[in-house]
Protein backbone atom coordinates (compact mmCIF):
# COMPACT_ATOMS: atom_id res chain seq x y z
CA UNK A 1 0.00 0.00 0.00
CA UNK A 2 1.26 3.41 -0.91
CA UNK A 3 0.88 4.81 2.59
CA UNK A 4 3.15 2.13 4.01
CA UNK A 5 5.75 2.90 1.41
CA UNK A 6 5.52 6.64 2.14
CA UNK A 7 5.90 5.95 5.83
CA UNK A 8 8.93 3.76 5.22
CA UNK A 9 10.55 6.41 3.03
CA UNK A 10 9.88 9.15 5.57
CA UNK A 11 11.42 7.06 8.31
CA UNK A 12 14.52 6.00 6.42
CA UNK A 13 15.24 9.53 5.23
CA UNK A 14 14.85 10.96 8.74
CA UNK A 15 17.03 8.20 10.13
CA UNK A 16 19.79 8.83 7.64
CA UNK A 17 19.66 12.52 8.44
CA UNK A 18 19.77 12.02 12.23
CA UNK A 19 22.74 9.72 12.01
CA UNK A 20 24.61 12.29 9.99
CA UNK A 21 24.65 14.73 12.89
CA UNK A 22 26.67 12.85 15.42
CA UNK A 23 27.06 15.43 18.16
CA UNK A 24 23.35 15.89 18.29
CA UNK A 25 22.91 12.13 18.52
CA UNK A 26 25.26 12.02 21.47
CA UNK A 27 23.43 14.76 23.30
CA UNK A 28 20.06 13.20 22.69
CA UNK A 29 21.36 9.90 24.05
CA UNK A 30 22.76 11.64 27.08
CA UNK A 31 19.60 13.63 27.68
CA UNK A 32 17.46 10.54 27.33
CA UNK A 33 19.68 8.56 29.69
CA UNK A 34 19.65 11.33 32.27
CA UNK A 35 15.93 11.87 31.96
CA UNK A 36 15.19 8.23 32.49
CA UNK A 37 17.71 8.08 35.32
CA UNK A 38 16.11 11.06 37.02
CA UNK A 39 12.67 9.49 36.74
CA UNK A 40 13.93 6.24 38.23
CA UNK A 41 15.75 8.07 41.00
CA UNK A 42 12.59 10.01 41.84
CA UNK A 43 10.62 6.77 41.98
CA UNK A 44 13.27 5.20 44.15
CA UNK A 45 13.19 8.04 46.62
CA UNK A 46 9.42 7.81 46.99
CA UNK A 47 9.68 4.12 47.72
CA UNK A 48 12.20 4.70 50.52
CA UNK A 49 9.28 6.22 52.37
CA UNK A 50 6.45 3.92 51.33
CA UNK A 51 5.93 0.27 50.52
CA UNK A 52 3.30 0.71 47.86
CA UNK A 53 1.93 3.49 45.73
CA UNK A 54 -1.71 3.09 44.84
CA UNK A 55 -1.24 -0.61 45.53
CA UNK A 56 1.78 -0.96 43.24
CA UNK A 57 5.14 -2.22 44.50
CA UNK A 58 8.43 -0.65 43.41
CA UNK A 59 9.04 -3.30 40.78
CA UNK A 60 5.56 -2.83 39.38
CA UNK A 61 5.94 0.95 39.38
CA UNK A 62 9.19 0.60 37.46
CA UNK A 63 7.48 -1.63 34.91
CA UNK A 64 4.85 1.09 34.60
CA UNK A 65 7.43 3.83 34.16
CA UNK A 66 9.23 1.80 31.53
CA UNK A 67 6.02 1.20 29.62
CA UNK A 68 5.13 4.88 29.83
CA UNK A 69 8.56 5.81 28.55
CA UNK A 70 8.24 3.44 25.60
CA UNK A 71 4.89 4.88 24.54
CA UNK A 72 6.07 8.46 25.06
CA UNK A 73 9.16 7.70 23.03
CA UNK A 74 7.07 6.33 20.17
CA UNK A 75 4.81 9.38 20.21
CA UNK A 76 7.84 11.65 20.34
CA UNK A 77 9.37 9.90 17.35
CA UNK A 78 6.41 9.64 15.02
CA UNK A 79 3.68 12.06 15.97
CA UNK A 80 4.99 15.04 17.90
CA UNK A 81 7.28 16.27 15.08
CA UNK A 82 4.21 16.81 12.96
CA UNK A 83 1.50 18.02 15.24
CA UNK A 84 3.37 20.11 17.75
CA UNK A 85 2.40 23.71 17.02
CA UNK A 86 0.04 22.61 14.30
CA UNK A 87 -1.62 25.95 14.55
CA UNK A 88 1.53 27.55 13.16
CA UNK A 89 1.31 25.36 10.10
CA UNK A 90 -2.27 26.39 9.47
CA UNK A 91 -1.39 30.04 9.77
CA UNK A 92 1.65 30.12 7.53
CA UNK A 93 0.31 28.03 4.70
CA UNK A 94 2.14 24.77 5.28
CA UNK A 95 -1.21 23.05 5.37
CA UNK A 96 -1.83 24.13 1.78
CA UNK A 97 1.24 22.20 0.69
CA UNK A 98 -0.17 19.15 2.39
CA UNK A 99 -3.52 19.59 0.66
CA UNK A 100 -1.87 19.78 -2.75
CA UNK A 101 -0.35 16.34 -2.43
CA UNK A 102 -2.06 13.14 -3.54
CA UNK A 103 -1.86 11.61 -0.07
CA UNK A 104 -4.65 11.75 2.54
CA UNK A 105 -4.00 14.98 4.38
CA UNK A 106 -4.52 13.49 7.81
CA UNK A 107 -1.68 11.08 7.15
CA UNK A 108 0.79 13.69 5.93
CA UNK A 109 -0.15 16.13 8.64
CA UNK A 110 0.24 13.66 11.50
CA UNK A 111 2.90 11.25 10.28
CA UNK A 112 4.67 13.07 7.46
CA UNK A 113 7.95 13.53 9.27
CA UNK A 114 9.56 11.73 12.11
CA UNK A 115 12.37 12.21 14.59
CA UNK A 116 14.14 8.85 14.86
CA UNK A 117 16.23 10.12 17.78
CA UNK A 118 13.11 9.67 19.87
CA UNK A 119 13.74 5.96 19.59
CA UNK A 120 16.51 6.51 22.11
CA UNK A 121 13.80 7.30 24.60
CA UNK A 122 12.09 4.07 23.62
CA UNK A 123 15.35 2.22 24.22
CA UNK A 124 15.60 3.87 27.62
CA UNK A 125 12.09 2.74 28.35
CA UNK A 126 12.93 -0.82 27.38
CA UNK A 127 15.92 -0.78 29.70
CA UNK A 128 13.78 0.48 32.57
CA UNK A 129 11.17 -2.12 31.78
CA UNK A 130 13.73 -4.89 32.02
CA UNK A 131 14.91 -3.54 35.38
CA UNK A 132 11.35 -3.51 36.62
CA UNK A 133 10.57 -6.99 35.35
CA UNK A 134 13.58 -8.24 37.26
CA UNK A 135 12.05 -6.99 40.47
CA UNK A 136 8.67 -8.62 40.02
CA UNK A 137 7.86 -11.69 42.05
CA UNK A 138 6.81 -13.68 39.04
CA UNK A 139 8.03 -13.26 35.50
CA UNK A 140 5.17 -12.56 33.07
CA UNK A 141 3.93 -15.34 30.82
CA UNK A 142 4.00 -15.24 27.06
CA UNK A 143 0.27 -14.54 27.04
CA UNK A 144 0.72 -11.57 29.34
CA UNK A 145 3.51 -10.26 27.16
CA UNK A 146 1.20 -10.46 24.14
CA UNK A 147 -1.48 -8.64 26.06
CA UNK A 148 1.05 -5.96 26.91
CA UNK A 149 1.99 -5.54 23.27
CA UNK A 150 -1.65 -5.30 22.30
CA UNK A 151 -2.32 -2.65 24.93
CA UNK A 152 0.78 -0.81 23.74
CA UNK A 153 -0.59 -0.70 20.22
CA UNK A 154 -3.93 0.51 21.51
CA UNK A 155 -2.15 3.19 23.55
CA UNK A 156 -0.29 4.49 20.51
CA UNK A 157 -3.45 4.49 18.40
CA UNK A 158 -5.49 6.36 21.00
CA UNK A 159 -2.64 8.81 21.61
CA UNK A 160 -2.44 9.46 17.88
CA UNK A 161 -6.18 10.04 17.71
CA UNK A 162 -6.20 12.40 20.67
CA UNK A 163 -3.29 14.33 19.20
CA UNK A 164 -5.09 14.73 15.88
CA UNK A 165 -8.28 15.77 17.67
CA UNK A 166 -6.35 18.39 19.58
CA UNK A 167 -4.65 19.68 16.46
CA UNK A 168 -7.99 19.88 14.67
CA UNK A 169 -9.06 22.45 17.25
CA UNK A 170 -6.83 24.87 15.39
CA UNK A 171 -9.41 24.95 12.62
CA UNK A 172 -12.08 26.32 14.91
CA UNK A 173 -10.13 28.25 17.53
CA UNK A 174 -6.81 29.26 16.06
CA UNK A 175 -5.94 31.40 19.05
CA UNK A 176 -5.79 28.39 21.36
CA UNK A 177 -2.52 26.61 21.85
CA UNK A 178 -3.29 23.48 23.79
CA UNK A 179 -0.15 21.56 22.87
CA UNK A 180 1.84 22.40 25.99
CA UNK A 181 -1.17 21.69 28.13
CA UNK A 182 -1.62 18.32 26.49
CA UNK A 183 1.99 17.26 27.02
CA UNK A 184 1.72 18.36 30.63
CA UNK A 185 -1.32 16.19 31.27
CA UNK A 186 0.30 13.11 29.73
CA UNK A 187 2.98 13.36 32.44
CA UNK A 188 0.42 12.06 34.88
CA UNK A 189 0.58 8.73 33.13
CA UNK A 190 3.95 7.77 34.55
CA UNK A 191 2.42 6.82 37.89
CA UNK A 192 -0.27 4.23 38.60
CA UNK A 193 -3.64 5.79 38.04
CA UNK A 194 -4.96 4.19 41.21
CA UNK A 195 -2.70 6.53 43.13
CA UNK A 196 -4.66 9.62 42.24
CA UNK A 197 -7.67 10.72 44.21
CA UNK A 198 -11.07 10.36 42.80
CA UNK A 199 -12.11 13.15 40.50
CA UNK A 200 -8.62 13.14 39.04
CA UNK A 201 -8.59 9.37 38.66
CA UNK A 202 -11.84 9.40 36.76
CA UNK A 203 -10.63 12.21 34.49
CA UNK A 204 -7.40 10.41 33.75
CA UNK A 205 -9.15 7.19 32.80
CA UNK A 206 -12.12 8.41 30.83
CA UNK A 207 -11.71 12.04 29.85
CA UNK A 208 -8.08 12.23 28.84
CA UNK A 209 -7.22 8.51 28.80
CA UNK A 210 -3.78 8.91 30.22
CA UNK A 211 -4.04 5.63 32.05
CA UNK A 212 -3.92 3.95 28.67
CA UNK A 213 -0.32 4.81 28.06
CA UNK A 214 1.11 3.48 31.28
CA UNK A 215 -1.16 1.88 33.78
CA UNK A 216 -3.26 -0.37 31.58
CA UNK A 217 -0.52 -1.96 29.50
CA UNK A 218 1.69 -2.37 32.55
CA UNK A 219 -1.14 -4.06 34.38
CA UNK A 220 -1.01 -6.81 31.80
CA UNK A 221 2.48 -7.61 32.95
CA UNK A 222 2.17 -7.01 36.66
CA UNK A 223 -1.28 -8.16 37.51
CA UNK A 224 -2.06 -10.47 34.69
CA UNK A 225 -4.08 -9.84 31.60
CA UNK A 226 -7.69 -9.04 32.35
CA UNK A 227 -10.30 -9.65 29.68
CA UNK A 228 -12.09 -6.29 29.65
CA UNK A 229 -9.24 -4.09 28.41
CA UNK A 230 -8.23 -6.72 25.88
CA UNK A 231 -11.68 -7.02 24.41
CA UNK A 232 -12.76 -3.40 24.70
CA UNK A 233 -9.37 -1.90 23.90
CA UNK A 234 -9.24 -2.47 20.16
CA UNK A 235 -12.83 -1.25 19.81
CA UNK A 236 -11.97 1.89 21.76
CA UNK A 237 -8.90 2.45 19.60
CA UNK A 238 -10.84 2.11 16.37
CA UNK A 239 -13.56 4.39 17.68
CA UNK A 240 -10.98 6.98 18.66
CA UNK A 241 -9.32 6.89 15.25
CA UNK A 242 -12.65 7.23 13.48
CA UNK A 243 -13.53 10.18 15.68
CA UNK A 244 -10.21 11.82 14.92
CA UNK A 245 -10.79 11.33 11.21
CA UNK A 246 -14.27 12.85 11.41
CA UNK A 247 -13.07 15.90 13.28
CA UNK A 248 -10.14 16.36 10.97
CA UNK A 249 -12.32 16.33 7.89
CA UNK A 250 -14.83 18.66 9.46
CA UNK A 251 -12.05 21.05 10.32
CA UNK A 252 -10.64 20.77 6.83
CA UNK A 253 -14.02 21.58 5.31
CA UNK A 254 -14.09 24.71 7.40
CA UNK A 255 -10.57 25.62 6.42
CA UNK A 256 -11.15 25.17 2.72
CA UNK A 257 -14.25 27.31 2.63
CA UNK A 258 -13.60 30.09 5.06
CA UNK A 259 -10.03 31.22 5.06
CA UNK A 260 -8.50 33.89 2.92
Amino acid at each position, binding site marked *: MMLVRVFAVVFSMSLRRSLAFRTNLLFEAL*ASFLGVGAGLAALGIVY*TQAETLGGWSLGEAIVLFGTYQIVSGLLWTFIEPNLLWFRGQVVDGALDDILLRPVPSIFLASLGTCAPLGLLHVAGGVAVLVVGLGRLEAAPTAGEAMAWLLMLGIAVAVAWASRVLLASLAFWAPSL*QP*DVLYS*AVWQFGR*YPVSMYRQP*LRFALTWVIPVSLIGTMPAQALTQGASPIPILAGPAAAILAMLLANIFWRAGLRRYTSATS
Partner: protein
Amino acid sequence: MRNVRLLALYVRRSFLEWMGFRSFLFTLVVNQAVAPVLGLAVWSAALPERSGISTYFIALLAVQLTTVSYEYHTVSMGIYQGNLNDNLLRPHPMVIAPLGENLATRAWHLLIGLPIIVIAMAATGVAFDAGNVVLALPALALAAALRFLFTYALALSALWGQQSGGVTELGTILVFLLGGLAAPIPLMPESIRPFGEALPFRAMLGFPAEIATGNLSTQEIVQGYGWQALWLAVFAAVAMVVWTAGVRRYTALGG
Protein backbone atom coordinates in the same frame (compact mmCIF):
# COMPACT_ATOMS: atom_id res chain seq x y z
CA MET B 1 20.65 54.13 39.52
CA ARG B 2 20.34 54.51 35.82
CA ASN B 3 20.56 50.77 35.42
CA VAL B 4 17.68 50.32 37.81
CA ARG B 5 15.56 52.69 35.75
CA LEU B 6 16.54 50.83 32.60
CA LEU B 7 15.60 47.58 34.26
CA ALA B 8 12.19 48.94 35.17
CA LEU B 9 11.77 49.98 31.55
CA TYR B 10 12.60 46.52 30.28
CA VAL B 11 10.27 44.93 32.80
CA ARG B 12 7.42 47.17 31.73
CA ARG B 13 8.08 46.58 28.07
CA SER B 14 8.24 42.82 28.48
CA PHE B 15 5.13 42.82 30.62
CA LEU B 16 3.15 44.61 27.93
CA GLU B 17 4.57 42.36 25.23
CA TRP B 18 3.33 39.30 27.04
CA MET B 19 -0.19 40.71 27.10
CA GLY B 20 -0.61 39.65 23.54
CA PHE B 21 0.22 36.07 24.35
CA ARG B 22 -2.04 35.40 27.27
CA SER B 23 -3.22 32.00 26.10
CA PHE B 24 0.35 30.88 25.51
CA LEU B 25 1.24 32.11 29.00
CA PHE B 26 -1.59 30.04 30.38
CA THR B 27 -0.18 26.87 28.87
CA LEU B 28 3.29 27.76 30.16
CA VAL B 29 1.94 28.19 33.66
CA VAL B 30 0.12 24.87 33.51
CA ASN B 31 3.30 23.24 32.32
CA GLN B 32 5.17 24.61 35.31
CA ALA B 33 2.44 23.46 37.62
CA VAL B 34 2.64 19.83 36.52
CA ALA B 35 5.71 18.81 38.51
CA PRO B 36 4.56 20.27 41.84
CA VAL B 37 1.05 18.89 41.38
CA LEU B 38 2.41 15.47 40.44
CA GLY B 39 4.71 15.63 43.44
CA LEU B 40 1.71 16.46 45.57
CA ALA B 41 -0.23 13.50 44.23
CA VAL B 42 2.62 11.03 44.58
CA TRP B 43 3.79 12.03 48.01
CA SER B 44 0.35 12.31 49.55
CA ALA B 45 -0.38 8.85 48.19
CA ALA B 46 2.92 7.56 49.57
CA LEU B 47 2.59 9.19 52.96
CA PRO B 48 -1.10 9.77 53.55
CA GLU B 49 -0.66 10.25 57.28
CA ARG B 50 2.08 12.82 57.04
CA SER B 51 0.96 16.37 57.60
CA GLY B 52 2.48 19.17 55.66
CA ILE B 53 2.95 17.30 52.37
CA SER B 54 0.16 19.17 50.63
CA THR B 55 1.23 22.44 52.24
CA TYR B 56 4.77 21.93 51.05
CA PHE B 57 3.90 21.19 47.45
CA ILE B 58 1.44 24.03 47.14
CA ALA B 59 4.07 26.37 48.55
CA LEU B 60 6.48 24.79 46.08
CA LEU B 61 4.07 25.62 43.26
CA ALA B 62 4.11 29.25 44.29
CA VAL B 63 7.90 29.21 44.51
CA GLN B 64 8.12 27.52 41.11
CA LEU B 65 6.06 30.25 39.48
CA THR B 66 8.07 32.98 41.21
CA THR B 67 11.42 31.51 40.23
CA VAL B 68 10.65 30.28 36.72
CA SER B 69 13.51 31.01 34.34
CA TYR B 70 13.31 30.62 30.59
CA GLU B 71 16.76 31.96 29.81
CA TYR B 72 17.49 29.04 27.54
CA HIS B 73 14.73 30.20 25.25
CA THR B 74 15.52 33.89 25.43
CA VAL B 75 19.28 34.16 25.85
CA SER B 76 20.55 30.98 24.19
CA MET B 77 18.18 31.10 21.27
CA GLY B 78 18.92 34.82 20.96
CA ILE B 79 22.59 34.03 20.61
CA TYR B 80 21.92 31.26 18.09
CA GLN B 81 19.73 33.53 16.04
CA GLY B 82 22.35 36.22 15.94
CA ASN B 83 20.67 38.77 18.19
CA LEU B 84 23.70 39.09 20.40
CA ASN B 85 25.18 41.66 18.08
CA ASP B 86 22.21 43.95 18.66
CA ASN B 87 22.52 43.48 22.39
CA LEU B 88 26.26 44.16 22.46
CA LEU B 89 25.63 47.51 20.83
CA ARG B 90 23.37 48.70 23.59
CA PRO B 91 24.89 51.09 26.13
CA HIS B 92 24.08 49.08 29.21
CA PRO B 93 25.14 45.78 30.76
CA MET B 94 23.70 42.97 28.71
CA VAL B 95 22.18 41.20 31.66
CA ILE B 96 19.57 43.93 32.15
CA ALA B 97 17.44 42.93 29.18
CA PRO B 98 17.08 39.23 30.06
CA LEU B 99 16.61 40.14 33.69
CA GLY B 100 13.81 42.52 32.84
CA GLU B 101 12.16 39.91 30.65
CA ASN B 102 12.56 37.33 33.38
CA LEU B 103 10.90 39.51 36.00
CA ALA B 104 7.99 40.31 33.72
CA THR B 105 7.54 36.65 32.84
CA ARG B 106 7.47 35.71 36.50
CA ALA B 107 4.95 38.43 37.26
CA TRP B 108 2.65 37.02 34.61
CA HIS B 109 3.16 33.48 35.84
CA LEU B 110 2.08 34.52 39.30
CA LEU B 111 -0.87 36.48 38.00
CA ILE B 112 -2.16 33.58 35.95
CA GLY B 113 -1.10 30.92 38.43
CA LEU B 114 -2.82 32.49 41.40
CA PRO B 115 -6.21 30.95 40.59
CA ILE B 116 -4.55 27.55 40.25
CA ILE B 117 -2.93 27.94 43.65
CA VAL B 118 -6.23 29.00 45.20
CA ILE B 119 -8.03 26.03 43.66
CA ALA B 120 -5.32 23.65 44.84
CA MET B 121 -5.58 25.07 48.36
CA ALA B 122 -9.32 24.66 48.35
CA ALA B 123 -9.10 21.13 46.98
CA THR B 124 -6.60 19.97 49.58
CA GLY B 125 -7.82 22.08 52.47
CA VAL B 126 -4.40 23.61 53.02
CA ALA B 127 -3.97 26.78 55.01
CA PHE B 128 -0.76 28.74 55.51
CA ASP B 129 0.46 30.23 58.72
CA ALA B 130 1.08 33.92 58.14
CA GLY B 131 4.22 33.97 60.25
CA ASN B 132 5.81 31.19 58.26
CA VAL B 133 4.97 32.91 55.01
CA VAL B 134 6.60 36.15 56.19
CA LEU B 135 9.73 34.25 57.19
CA ALA B 136 9.79 32.62 53.77
CA LEU B 137 9.55 35.81 51.73
CA PRO B 138 13.21 36.87 51.91
CA ALA B 139 14.18 33.31 51.05
CA LEU B 140 11.86 33.52 48.08
CA ALA B 141 13.57 36.66 46.84
CA LEU B 142 16.99 35.09 47.24
CA ALA B 143 15.83 31.92 45.51
CA ALA B 144 14.45 33.94 42.61
CA ALA B 145 17.75 35.78 42.21
CA LEU B 146 19.79 32.60 42.50
CA ARG B 147 17.73 30.67 40.00
CA PHE B 148 18.01 33.48 37.49
CA LEU B 149 21.80 33.61 37.83
CA PHE B 150 22.02 29.84 37.55
CA THR B 151 19.88 29.58 34.44
CA TYR B 152 21.51 32.65 32.91
CA ALA B 153 25.00 31.23 33.38
CA LEU B 154 23.92 27.95 31.82
CA ALA B 155 22.26 29.72 28.91
CA LEU B 156 25.44 31.65 28.22
CA SER B 157 27.12 28.36 27.32
CA ALA B 158 25.59 29.09 23.92
CA LEU B 159 28.55 31.40 23.40
CA TRP B 160 30.72 28.31 23.13
CA GLY B 161 28.69 26.21 20.78
CA GLN B 162 25.56 24.23 20.15
CA GLN B 163 25.47 22.36 23.41
CA SER B 164 23.54 24.84 25.51
CA GLY B 165 20.39 22.78 25.05
CA GLY B 166 22.02 19.78 26.66
CA VAL B 167 23.58 21.87 29.41
CA THR B 168 20.26 23.50 30.24
CA GLU B 169 18.55 20.13 30.23
CA LEU B 170 21.11 18.86 32.70
CA GLY B 171 20.50 21.87 34.93
CA THR B 172 16.75 21.32 34.80
CA ILE B 173 17.13 17.67 35.79
CA LEU B 174 19.38 18.59 38.71
CA VAL B 175 16.93 21.19 39.95
CA PHE B 176 14.13 18.64 39.65
CA LEU B 177 15.99 15.90 41.53
CA LEU B 178 17.80 17.89 44.15
CA GLY B 179 15.79 21.06 44.41
CA GLY B 180 12.85 19.60 46.22
CA LEU B 181 10.55 18.78 43.30
CA ALA B 182 11.10 15.06 43.02
CA ALA B 183 11.11 14.75 46.74
CA PRO B 184 11.08 17.24 49.62
CA ILE B 185 14.64 17.42 50.91
CA PRO B 186 13.66 16.47 54.45
CA LEU B 187 12.21 13.24 53.07
CA MET B 188 15.30 12.22 51.15
CA PRO B 189 17.29 9.19 52.22
CA GLU B 190 19.76 9.80 55.06
CA SER B 191 22.80 9.44 52.84
CA ILE B 192 21.69 12.11 50.39
CA ARG B 193 20.01 14.60 52.68
CA PRO B 194 23.11 16.59 53.78
CA PHE B 195 24.09 17.07 50.14
CA GLY B 196 20.57 18.08 49.28
CA GLU B 197 20.65 20.76 51.98
CA ALA B 198 24.02 22.11 50.94
CA LEU B 199 23.68 22.14 47.19
CA PRO B 200 22.37 25.25 45.43
CA PHE B 201 19.28 23.56 44.00
CA ARG B 202 17.36 23.54 47.24
CA ALA B 203 18.38 27.15 47.74
CA MET B 204 16.70 28.10 44.50
CA LEU B 205 13.51 26.13 44.88
CA GLY B 206 12.66 24.00 47.86
CA PHE B 207 13.98 26.08 50.74
CA PRO B 208 11.37 28.86 50.73
CA ALA B 209 8.66 26.21 50.45
CA GLU B 210 10.07 24.39 53.45
CA ILE B 211 9.98 27.55 55.52
CA ALA B 212 6.41 28.29 54.51
CA THR B 213 5.36 24.79 55.52
CA GLY B 214 6.60 25.46 59.02
CA ASN B 215 8.56 22.28 59.56
CA LEU B 216 11.98 23.89 59.99
CA SER B 217 13.59 24.86 63.25
CA THR B 218 15.05 28.33 63.67
CA GLN B 219 18.54 26.94 63.40
CA GLU B 220 17.71 25.15 60.17
CA ILE B 221 16.21 28.33 58.74
CA VAL B 222 19.31 30.33 59.55
CA GLN B 223 21.52 27.64 58.06
CA GLY B 224 19.40 27.62 54.94
CA TYR B 225 19.71 31.37 54.55
CA GLY B 226 23.43 30.99 54.95
CA TRP B 227 23.58 28.53 52.09
CA GLN B 228 21.45 30.82 49.94
CA ALA B 229 23.75 33.79 50.55
CA LEU B 230 26.79 31.67 49.76
CA TRP B 231 25.43 30.27 46.52
CA LEU B 232 24.15 33.65 45.46
CA ALA B 233 27.67 35.07 45.74
CA VAL B 234 29.11 32.04 43.94
CA PHE B 235 26.73 32.19 41.02
CA ALA B 236 26.95 35.93 40.67
CA ALA B 237 30.69 35.49 40.26
CA VAL B 238 30.25 32.49 37.93
CA ALA B 239 27.81 34.39 35.73
CA MET B 240 30.19 37.30 35.45
CA VAL B 241 33.14 35.09 34.63
CA VAL B 242 31.17 33.08 32.07
CA TRP B 243 29.90 36.24 30.47
CA THR B 244 33.28 37.92 30.22
CA ALA B 245 35.01 34.83 28.89
CA GLY B 246 32.16 34.02 26.56
CA VAL B 247 31.89 37.48 25.05
CA ARG B 248 35.63 37.61 24.53
CA ARG B 249 35.47 34.32 22.67
CA TYR B 250 32.38 35.33 20.74
CA THR B 251 33.76 38.65 19.56
CA ALA B 252 37.07 37.04 18.69
CA LEU B 253 35.52 34.24 16.69
CA GLY B 254 32.57 36.14 15.29
CA GLY B 255 29.99 33.79 16.72
